[in-house]
């Protein structure tokens, strides 16, 4: 019985040394029992440094391999465009894309993305009589050399200057943008190839911007 009493009073595990060492007594515990406590000491600076390094590394990893957070992008591709490049390109689709790229770069500023231009200032391209001609020659000339002075588009009068884009755009880009203009926004014009652009460029190699009257004399086809 006495043995049991002793065991009930010493709740420490009995070691071979026996005795009543109070290695389990901790300071700071209100109830004075032997439960573990924790001191309040600052976080080691090394952990803060590690936090910064790991956050940086984890962020770099995620940004490099996020695939644009697209559900269609699997390893090893990084963007949807990369995946699209694996597939045969539909030439018509690719041409339209190219034309749109050129248009968005140089034409949108004045003629707007919807091809309606600005009333009184820049003529529209959508449904324009100049655009929907049977042949593209006038349009190619216009793009290559620009136009200035008074002109009538769809019965409206305009008097402005369009800079020449021949020095800036290559033949295929001219062909692409003219094709785009002639087929977009309900326009029903034919497509244009770079082979059609090259002779026109050569023919007018040193000329300045057109005037409307001059251009109207150029055959359409």
């Amino acid at each position, binding site marked *: 019985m006495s043995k049991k009493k002793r065991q009930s009073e010493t709740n420490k595990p009995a070691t071979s040394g026996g005795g009543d060492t109070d290695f389990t007594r901790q300071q700071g515990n209100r109830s004075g029992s032997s439960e573990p406590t924790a001191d309040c000491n600052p976080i080691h600076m090394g952990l803060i440094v590690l936090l910064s390094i790991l956050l940086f590394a984890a962020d770099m990893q995620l940004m490099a391999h996020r695939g644009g957070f697209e*559900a269609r992008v*699997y*390893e*090893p591709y990084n963007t949807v465009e990369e995946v699209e490049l*694996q597939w*045969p390109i539909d030439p018509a689709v690719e041409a339209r894309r190219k034309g749109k790229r050129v248009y968005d770069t140089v034409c949108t500023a004045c003629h707007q993305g919807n091809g309606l231009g600005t009333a009184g200032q820049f003529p529209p391209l959508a449904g324009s009589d100049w655009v929907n001609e049977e042949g593209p020659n006038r349009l190619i000339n216009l793009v290559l050399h620009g136009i200035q002075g008074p002109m009538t588009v769809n019965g409206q009068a305009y008097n402005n200057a369009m800079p020449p884009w021949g020095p800036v755009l290559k033949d295929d880009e001219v062909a692409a943008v003219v094709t785009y203009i002639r087929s977009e926004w309900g326009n029903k014009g034919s497509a244009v190839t770079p082979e059609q652009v090259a002779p026109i460029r050569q023919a007018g190699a040193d000329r300045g911007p057109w005037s409307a009257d001059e251009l109207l004399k150029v055959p359409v086809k």
Partner: protein
Amino acid sequence: MNQTPLIFLGSFAAMAASFWGLVVAPQNTIGRQQATLIQDTGAYYPASRTGSAEAGAQVYRAQGCAECHTQQVRPKGQGGDIDRGWGRRRTVAEDYLADQPVQIGALRLGPDLSNIGRRQPDATYHLQNLYNSRLLKPGSLMPRYTYLFDVRPLGEGVKPSEAALPAATEPGFEVIPKPEAIALVAYLQSLAADVPLFSAPFPIAKTNAAAVVAPAPKQ
């Protein structure tokens, strides 16, 4: 200060955030995918399994085949899966739309099975492999699934039944596969993930143009 509510709120917030990010958000994209229509054949990929193959999927699950076999092909640069001929292209989420349960596996102690239906279309091969893999591949570590077969000794002059495996499988005995074995083999024969999909083109671009069953790429 009672910190318990703080621990609860913090844990809950963390779990909710990860649940949204890893489960809900992907579910809205890959979880809502539909089977792809293959333009040339008019069939849908992946085709849902019926009958024996569907039952076979449950046999596959019950025997724990996914403990040693994976059903996922990695892309060409990331391991030798495609070089080993385990697939013409990597596997993507769409390949598993018809699986119930999805058994992609995690450890390989045997070959990958995503395209085993193409590599080994022969039912007898699979049945013999299940009965005793070492007959076909000496040194194989695959267990013997003898309990999926009825093994009866052949009496004098008794011919083995039509359904029995070739005599060489167990000389002197006839080995007849049970329905579970047949279902499992039907399932294995249905495993194929070789229709090129937008997210998983064949690694060689020209092959995609020439592929008969290629669907039109998504815009």
